């Protein structure tokens, strides 16, 4: 049996988790809510993160529009995702939730805007 100590990152409490792995059985202790259990399991089986960045805007009231992956993506795809995000430019106007890149880096997850940018 393998046991791993980790800190839950799902909320600012930062609960210290102990995750025990035996075959395909994963047991999480130390969490103070169900989000912690979910995080502990996912972190040992297939860790994921939400990635946030910003994308250059043409003709907007600001230079950059902040963006995020609509859902969390596998941790090992973060840099592949950033590669694509960095290549993109978009024309104003932009609305919160607008899809900037559909299916980023083959993750099946889209990159969406997190701020409104007006056209000027």
């Amino acid at each position: 049996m393998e046991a791993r100590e980790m800190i839950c990152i799902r909320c600012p409490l930062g609960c210290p988790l102990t995750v025990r792995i035996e075959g395909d059985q994963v047991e999480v202790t130390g969490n103070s809510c169900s989000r912690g259990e979910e995080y502990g399991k996912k972190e040992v089986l297939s860790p994921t993160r939400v990635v946030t960045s910003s994308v250059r805007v043409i003709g907007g009231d600001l230079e950059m529009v902040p963006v995020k992956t609509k859902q969390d993506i596998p941790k090992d795809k973060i840099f592949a995702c950033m590669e694509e995000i960095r290549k993109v430019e978009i024309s104003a106007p932009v609305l919160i939730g607008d899809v900037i890149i559909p299916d980023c880096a083959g993750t099946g997850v889209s990159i969406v805007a997190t701020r409104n940018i007006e056209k000027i």
Partner: protein
Amino acid sequence: MTEHDIVIIGGGPAGLAAAVAAKKAGITDILILERESCLGGILNQCIHNGFGLHTFKEELTGPEYAARYIEMAESENIPYKLNTMVLDISKDKEVTVINREDGLSTIKAKAIILAMGCRERPRGALNIPGYRPAGIYSAGTAQRLMNIEGFSVGKEVVILGSGDIGLIMARRMTLEGAKVKVVAELMPYSGGLKRNIVQCLDDYGIPLKLSHTVINIEGKDRVTGITLAQVDENRKPIPGTEEYYSCDTLLLSVGLIPENELSRGAGVRMSQVTSGPVVGDQLETSSEGIFACGNVLHVHDLVDYVSEEAALAGTSAAAYVKAACEKKAAHTVELSAENGVRYTVPQMIDLENMEDKVTVRFRVADVYKDRFISVYYDDVRVSHKKKKVLAPGEMEQVVLKKDSFKDYPELKRIVVCTEVE
């Protein structure tokens, strides 16, 4: 001179939440003054996620959280002035402002809510030897330059200070292709949230060196490198522990200070510990009718708590305006922070006129393991809660209920402290 019931200084998360709450409490004549060209304050540059879990039960980015409150303010038709700088607040609540449309003008308020936020400690506050080359930024400035203005800040980075903004910028710059070589922290513990150490440093293999500081900056036109050294228990560099890092950028994430120049001008009594105003349970300052909330009051680690606190300031200011500024009989009791509790906000509670419950927020002075947080009414211990870990980087709170005071009619003081057992 124009007149308004409530004037709010600052259109960030605190100002917006205060405005929405004051409007809901029945005050229609509100004006928000914001020096930037848009509402939302510092949240606009905090493009990372993790905001709003308490308030909206979902994980939002900073701009998304700001947008929710901007929408609320707009749907409540709360007026605001952008690009407007407040120059002075007088003791009789006259606010001097300047902007391009009105020039210099004066606004008279029945109540004022201070919501100006905080600013970062700059290099000048640290006394690091070296020239003044390009490439030294406070972490928040670098954040703004990258996330809003779209500049590239640096390629090889050393970060001094493990505050949350520094940690988040370590990740951000790594994602943008920079090499973050090390984060150095003067104290023997991190100043940031644990989750940020994990997801910003550990995720990307960035080392965190505790009890270390920058003792030299090299480079005359642009930073070319810095020297780190380990420090002893008196925070003095230990000879022989020097380590050189070549880099073109040094980010400073070395603490936030409430921005209270205007509050001081208004004659508001200040706390030496928080650098913010001293307030009662209604978040009223020592100047009648002037309220404070958010990071201008004390530096928070969660915007959700800022919004909650600001809503209280908004309803309190509304109640003050409606009561036509009359004074009620009070039984004011001081809160005293002892034995490892650095401060409390509020610093006073009016037991006569308090709400059903008051949330008292505080920070501890050091990292403590397996300690209790206790509350005493005079000499009687009324609450005693065990905490596995307490750290200065994480704000704590206790909730005091109004009916818990009914057995203490002669109460003189309330003590919030940590205890070993």
